[in-house]
């Protein structure tokens, strides 16, 4: 996976904003992007608001995402 994280990142405050940012990262160059996770540990917040609770997730394996035409 090759991702450029340096062009002026903004703080994400809502999950719709996070989702569209993620979508653009995945499809911005019409690329097929493969993520290989090796026991990646994530504390997943229950909300984007203040004082969220966190769930502990651990991810292992491969995820490939690409864009396709709408049917």
């Amino acid at each position, binding site marked *: 996976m090759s991702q450029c994280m340096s062009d002026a990142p903004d703080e994400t405050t809502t999950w719709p904003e996070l989702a569209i940012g993620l979508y653009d*990262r995945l499809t911005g160059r019409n690329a097929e992007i493969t993520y290989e996770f090796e026991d990646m540990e994530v504390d997943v917040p229950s909300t984007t608001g203040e004082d969220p609770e966190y769930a502990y997730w651990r991810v292992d*394996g491969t995820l490939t995402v690409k*864009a396709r035409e709408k*049917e």
Partner: protein
Amino acid sequence: MTTTQSIPNGDPPETLAELLDDLEQRRSLSVDADLTVDLDGHTASVVGYDDLVAVDLPSVAAALALYRDGPVPVMDAAAVLSSVGLTAEIRVRGAPVARLGDAAVPSRLARYLGLGPVELVPDGPLLALTRRRG
């Protein structure tokens, strides 16, 4: 948490409705996945087959925990999945219990509960409770 935005239509969406409008103008997604995900002690497998993502959980309790404690409300997740042409099939020990998103056919119960593009598989939880992993 940070992201880099490249939104063609101006400001990034702040609400689910704005997100769905934005995604409506974009292409669908295809997912190929083979993942093992530990969700607060419940180990799930996630397998993607193009437009279908199967999430297999070890117990009904794990499915309920994901429904209750997931980072995104189920109805919102279902709407977003539908807008990018994806369907998530939730399974417990291999037995489908619910489908969310594009190919979900909302049952009368799901519509009554206002669950949006969520299909409940009535026999799924019972089958899951009686099924043992082979």
